[in-house]
Structure formats: C-alpha cells, structure tokens
C-alpha cells in the first residue's frame, strides 16, 4: 500500500523537525528547512514513494538544504583549543552540564561530521543507510563518526571505553 503525503507528514513530520533542529541548532531554521523539503517532495510525491524511501529522501533534502546554513554559521564561530567543556561524572546538574557541553561541541563539528552524528546517535541508522542518505561510502561514514567522537571526547572529556562500535 502506498503512503500518501498527508499520512507521511502525520507519521514522520515531527521526527523530521526534530532531526533538522539537531542539525541546525536553530528551531526556526529547522522548521523552515522541513517545510521547504516537504513542499518540494509534495510536488513529486508519486515518484518519491515509487522509487525511493521517503524517509531517506526527506532527510537528504534537509541535509542538503542546511548545507549553506552550516557554512554561514561556521564562518561566525571561532574554534578553540581550550578544553573549557570538560565535566566530571556525577549528579543531575553535572549530567545537564555534560549534555549541554556535548551539544555545543556537536554544533562545532564539520557539517558532514554533525550529520553523521545525528543520523547515527539520534536516528539510530546503520552506516549503510547513512551512506545512502549522504551519498558517500559506509567507510566514509565510519571515518566521520570516528573523527567526530574523537573531537567530542577531547573537548568534553569523557573517557573512552575499550570496545568499539560495530555496524
């Protein structure tokens, strides 16, 4: 059975907006991006549901649309080598601080690294699906993820464990 545009938005619209929020860090921009992606998808919905997974297609459109936004924003932000975000494990306040620190550092990742992190750890997609959305290889996805985690680990200061993630 083919899913209609209205059914898709009802089922997945909220998830798309949350995804876009994590990508951009800006709720207004996220809403705008998703509206635009959905509008363009609506105009060729029959083709999309026939030849593609709408979820993958819409996420690709949101990522592509946010690309220029990332670039503009990254121009304004100055990377720092100072480990100001390091936190210690412990109570709820510390966890909140740790979470905020992680989100700030995710916002400073490169656009590709941020996309991989969000698709992997929020959407919980496997590397092959992420590769399909981003138009790259699964090896590249793993490389972006590893670099991103190393950056976050260095900046936020959570110790690594010995086991690696397997996909």
């Amino acid at each position, binding site marked *: 059975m083919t899913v209609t545009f209205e059914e898709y938005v009802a089922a997945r619209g909220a998830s798309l907006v949350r995804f876009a929020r994590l990508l951009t860090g800006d709720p207004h921009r996220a809403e705008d991006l998703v509206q635009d992606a*959905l509008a363009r998808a609506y105009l060729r919905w029959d083709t999309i549901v026939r030849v593609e997974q709408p979820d993958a297609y819409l996420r690709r459109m949101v990522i592509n649309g946010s690309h220029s936004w990332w670039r503009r924003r990254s121009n304004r932000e100055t990377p720092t080598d100072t480990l100001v975000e390091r936190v210690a494990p412990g109570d709820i306040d510390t966890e909140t601080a740790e979470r905020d620190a992680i989100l700030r550092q995710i916002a400073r990742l490169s656009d590709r690294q941020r996309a991989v992190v969000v698709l992997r750890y929020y959407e919980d997609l496997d590397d092959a699906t992420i590769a399909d959305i981003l138009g790259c290889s699964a090896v590249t996805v793993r490389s972006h993820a590893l670099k991103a985690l190393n950056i976050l680990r260095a900046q936020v200061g959570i110790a690594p464990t010995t086991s690696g993630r397997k996909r």
Partner: protein
Amino acid sequence: MSTAMEHAVARALHADAQVDVDVAGLRTAALARARRIRLRRRLVGSVVAVVALIAGIGVAATRYDGKPPAEQYTAPKTLPRLDAPGAALAPAKVATDPSLIHFDVDPKRLDATELTWRSGPDVESVAVRTADTDRYTVYVELARTRAALDGSGWGLDGAAPRPWYPPRPETGPWREQPAYSPEQLSGPDGYAVLVVPGAPDTVTRLPDPNGGDRARYSTTWSPVDGLWIQVEVASTGPEALVNAIEALRLDRSQACRVPGAVRTDLSWVECETSLARSWEYSTITFRGGDGALVDVMFGNFSVAQPFVSNRSIAGRQARAFTRQGGGPALELPGGKGRQLLVSDRTGRFPEETLTRLAEGFAFKGDANDIETWPARPVS
C-alpha cells in the same frame, strides 16, 4: 552502542530533541509553500516564453533593417542531467563509475564551443574548447585524492601519455604532441595571487609551451573532505582561471553517454565523449584481466591519408598499425562521424582482441539525440 562517549552523545541528542511539533501546522505550511513553488515555476516558464518571443521579434526586426544579426552564443550539447548528488555532496562517488560525471560547467561563462567529458577509474574531467582560439583552453579534473590528480598525466598541452585530443577533422592525421615539461616558476613572477571564494589563493603560472603569450595558470584545492580539484587554463591573464573556477558546478551530476556499444567480456572502465553543437566523438575504454587498457574511439576524427587498407574486418576495410609512441591499433574509416579506432593503450593485447572489439562495435541511437543513446555502452 559501546562507548561512554557514544552513550553520552545519544542521551544529549535525544534530550535536546524532546520538543512538541505542530504537525498539522507543518503540513499546512508545506502545502502552501508547494503551491507557491508551483506557481513560481509556471510564472518563470511564462516569462521565459515572453522573453524568447521578444528576442525573436528583436532579431526579426534587426534582419528587416538589413543589418546582420549579432552573433549569438550557442552552447554545446549537454549530457543528460541526473537526479543524483554532485561531487560536493558525494565526493566518495567521484571517478567510481564510468557512466557518471559528478560535476558540470557553465558553458556560456566559458564561451565554450566544445566540451570533452571523461569519467575514468581515478579522475573525472572536462576539457573545454573555447571560441577565442578554437583550442582547448580550460581543463578541469576532479578526483578523490591529490595523488590521483598528480598522477593523471593529463592536461592542456599534450602532457598525457597519448595524443588524446584528436585534431579537428580538417587538420589532418593524428600527431604526437611534443613532450612538455613545465618549468614551475618561483618568486613573484611565477605566481598570481587571486581571491576565489572557496578556492586557494595561490596559482601557478607556467610559460606558454608554444612560445606564445598564453601562459598556463593552474591551481589545485580540496573544497570538501575527499574531493580534489585541479583547474588549468591557457590565457593571457589569470582572470580566466577565476572565471573557470566560478563556472564550475559541483552540485550536479550527469550521465556519460556515447552513441555506440561494444559486445565484449572486458570490463568497461572509462567513458569519454565530446560534444560541440553536435556530437564529435566518444571513447570507451576497457580493461583486461591483467590491467591492460584498450580504447574504442569512434566518431568525427581523422584517419591516415591516404588510407591503405591491410585488413578486412567484418567486411570493412581496416588498417593495422602501431601508434607512434603507443601500442598496436586498428582503424576503420567510415566517413564523417563514423570513423572507428581500436587502440591498445598498454600494448599488451593480442591483435585478435582488437579485432573482436572492432567486430563487436556498433553505433547505437541517433547521434544527434543524446536521449536515444544507450545507458551503458556494453552489450
């Protein structure tokens, strides 16, 4: 999920995403925007039609005055556009499939009269013939690594290991370009400093290998992780390089198509097709089991004159010869746009392989209509 960092990232993302979303409002806004996009497209279509009509009237009026119409730019034919990400978004896919080209150029900006597209195992490229000199004056290469660019051996001045740009039909038979070892200048005379958005600001200038005033300006940079680009121009000034870089489109993909196909078990590894106002020529390259390469080139190019046949292949006159500085080759004249050359690039195939390729080749589709060309040139 296995590391503390990964757990922490997932927790942070999920906590941050816990927001209410007005799904009904989202759907309404998206549908309204879709209507606006549709309306805008219709309006643009109407405006284009009106402008075309006005332009037509203008041209007609000019002709009525008895004055010659201003020469209008006619772009070369274009390859089929694909709904797939370009090199900027999919750098890992560059030069991985001979049927795909992950970039485009604006031919009008370059004043291009002919574009020779190529997609090979390591590099995708376009060589641009421009109206000012009727020679190739712009060369663009894309690769996944810097080493692939440095090792491609291609360029504007016949630095390739083979004379790969065929002469225009009226310029006679193939000839080898003299070897060109560019002398990289140093100091203020050797470099031009340019400001190009997204590109490096240092440009290498090399002297004109022909002793003229058209120096070779080139630059290499990596616009995104996993993508390297080299642009080279032959020009009297570095501005042409800026123009060439700005004419690049990395957000588009095209299909490398050729109006022919070969019946073979060899692996197809490279596609080259040259488009002016009409199709000029194409080359499809195959790899043997030991890595040897053989080119099947067909279309509009010269064969030896006078032609002396020393073979008959599939009922056609053919000439077996050894390319100057290259391996054995078979050429089968067929008239304008129907020439065929099977050329062993590495000199390791027996002649019978070349013969089988020549026998197995057939023109496919209408040479003037790219939409009729096969998606893959192997049958």
